[in-house]
């Protein structure tokens, strides 16, 4: 008897997962709780766990393909013989669509990997054709067009708004209706790629896609920046002597400052200000061609030693792409430290969604201070709040003893 293995639902926003590898081969013995495969979601690479004992059996879904959640990706057989008998050929579509209707948009058409000529082929004019390539006339709304089925209103809307409907992602029913056009309108404009050098398209990782999406969303936050020179030499000195990362120590200093100015522990929502009762500080970290923000929970209350230990674990998980949403979501204040790069004299950062502010820390100068820029959500805090915050933080850093 074979039991199906499903593409797991690993987060509330996950609609599809990309199967990155099968960690067991067909016929291999699997115990309950073992990882049988790895799946990249929009947030991280996660394991697909076996929920019973058995032997991995095919057909197995192919790797590097986006598969809707709850779709069968492989099987667990009760016996090794049974597992091996069932061939290894992976079907292109593991389950007939009619059997398990996708609950999410169908997979995007696979993108070409060959270079795409940047200019139309007509760049070399023939004697009888005009020298300039004739642009294809814009499709009249209602006329046949490529891409997905679209409602007349969606076509008319796209026509009026100058949106190429063929590029619009369809709704859950596979059709393009007005909401999809509006979404496309609000989506960032496509950069013009014609006429430039040839290029090839690379499918972004799930994580990069997620960053792009949240950054777009964050760009709507009304923000302002206040820059200060903060003395960090003493903190750096003390941190080094106690084997604590400067970033962790800075986080603690920030957390204590937030305790003094609790407005910074609030988030603007449509219903009102969400006032958090614990101070979680997120820290921007470079991770596998992307960016992730592991969170130090309760940074105000925990000791620096504890925080350092937590931080170490978080970094290890980041390296192995094992961070889950509970590890990287939910901070109200963020820290971005580029001070490890001595050339960085000054920079600022984007306030992530759900945060009040982010502190950008540049490299330390010879005078022992670093240029620090606090970018704030103006709906949550105001300029004077930021000035108070930075003043308080400066005194924390000048006399860091209270942090220990």
């Amino acid at each position, binding site marked *: 008897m074979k039991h199906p293995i499903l593409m797991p639902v690993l987060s509330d926003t996950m609609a599809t997962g990309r199967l990155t590898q099968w960690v067991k081969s067909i016929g291999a013995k699997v115990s309950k709780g073992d990882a049988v495969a790895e799946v990249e979601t929009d947030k991280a690479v996660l394991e697909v766990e076996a929920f019973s004992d058995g032997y991995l059996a095919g057909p197995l879904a192919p790797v590097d393909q986006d598969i809707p959640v709850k779709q069968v990706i492989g099987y667990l057989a009760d016996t090794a013989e049974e597992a091996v008998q069932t061939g290894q050929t992976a079907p292109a579509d593991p389950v007939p669509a009619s059997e398990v*209707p996708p609950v999410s948009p169908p997979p995007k058409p696979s993108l070409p990997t060959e270079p795409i000529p940047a200019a139309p082929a007509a760049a070399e004019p023939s004697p009888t054709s005009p020298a300039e390539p004739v642009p294809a006339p814009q499709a009249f*709304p*209602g006329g046949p067009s490529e891409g997905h089925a679209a*409602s*007349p*209103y*969606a*076509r*008319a809307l796209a026509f009026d708004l100058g949106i190429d409907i063929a590029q619009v992602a369809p*709704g*859950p*029913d*596979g*059709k393009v*209706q*007005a909401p999809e056009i509006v979404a496309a309108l609000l989506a960032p404009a496509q950069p013009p790629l014609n006429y430039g050098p040839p290029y090839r398209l690379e499918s972004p990782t799930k994580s990069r896609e997620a960053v792009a999406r949240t950054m777009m969303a964050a760009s709507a936050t009304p923000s302002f920046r206040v820059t200060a020179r903060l003395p960090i030499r003493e903190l750096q000195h003390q941190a080094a002597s106690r084997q604590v990362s400067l970033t962790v120590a800075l986080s603690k200093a920030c957390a204590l400052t937030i305790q003094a100015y609790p407005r910074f522990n609030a988030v603007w929502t449509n219903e009102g200000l969400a006032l958090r009762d614990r101070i979680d500080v997120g820290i921007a970290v470079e991770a596998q061609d992307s960016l992730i923000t592991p969170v130090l929970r309760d940074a105000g209350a925990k000791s620096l030693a504890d925080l350092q230990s937590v931080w170490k674990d978080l970094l290890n998980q980041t390296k192995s792409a094992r961070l889950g949403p509970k590890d990287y979501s939910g901070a109200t204040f963020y820290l971005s430290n580029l001070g490890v790069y001595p050339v960085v004299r000054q920079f600022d950062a984007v306030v992530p969604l759900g945060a009040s502010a982010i502190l950008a820390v540049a490299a330390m100068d010879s005078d022992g201070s670093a240029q620090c820029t606090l970018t704030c959500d103006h709906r949550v805090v105001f300029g004077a709040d930021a000035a108070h915050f930075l003043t308080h933080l400066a005194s924390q850093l000048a006399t860091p003893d209270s942090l220990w």
Partner: protein
Amino acid sequence: MDENLFYWQAVNIALDRAMEEDPDVFVMGEDVGLYGGTYRATENLMAKYGELRVRDTPISENSFTGLGVGAAMTGLRPLIEIMTLNFALLALDSIVNLAAKIPFMSGGQFPVPLTIRMPGGVAKQLGAQHSQRLEHTLMNVPGLRIAVPFTPQDAYGQLRQAIRSNDPIIVLEHDLLYFSKGAVDLDAQAPPMHRAIVRRAGTDITCAAYSLMVAEALAAAETLKESGISMEVIDLRSLSPIDWKCLQQSVEKTHHMIIAEEDSGFAGAGAELAATVQERCFYSLDAPVSRVAGMNIPIPFNAALESAAIPHAADIVVAAKKMLLERSQTS
């Protein structure tokens, strides 16, 4: 001055006032006189106006309807009551070949100022022969005008207008509306006979309905509100001609349209509505026009089956949600 009246009372008063106002108006039909009409619509009229003006007829639908046409050709204003529209099938020659065509075929010499009232629709377990609608048949007859009053106010106002008009006009009343009650202002200036009225404003979806189905549409709109859907309900009031402008304005606002009709969906009134709305509003539609209509079977006698064969508010709710909230590939 508003009076709270039953629908049948509104009809009764309309007839009384029309007869009082114009001596050329007379009423004719089965049991309209002594009996007072099966739905009491002609109650007391015979006592007041005499037998010549309130005439009980033999059971000869085609001929007494045709008689009305002949009388109308000489300038009288007959009001013919056909006891139920199921019997009007026997009078179709008089309605279709005579009333609708004489004004035209005579080169305009003979207007036919005839009004024909008939109750119909699905009531309660009357069986297939007495549970029909006829709008699909009559709408396809050029030369006829069709009013479908839903409120007692319209039952009064549209009937008065129909009697005053020089065209042959069919007034389709619904069996189940006669004992509905509503405020009637007998002296109010009635809206034009064929103007559609927005009974409830909305922004997300338009539901066009007529006669009894307006009540179902209004109930559906209330339910949909709980799901955050704002449904506009249009009472068509007339099926020929149809106030396309009203529908168009609504669809251009909501981009979604449902038609609620008790009539069988196949080749019913909704088919005409859907076809013309897509012709006029194609580029405004964000989803196919949806018809919530009666099933394409004779109406069953059994109460449960009878109810299931025609649309109710819940069906309109399902259709609206399907269109707006539950888009899926199976739809």
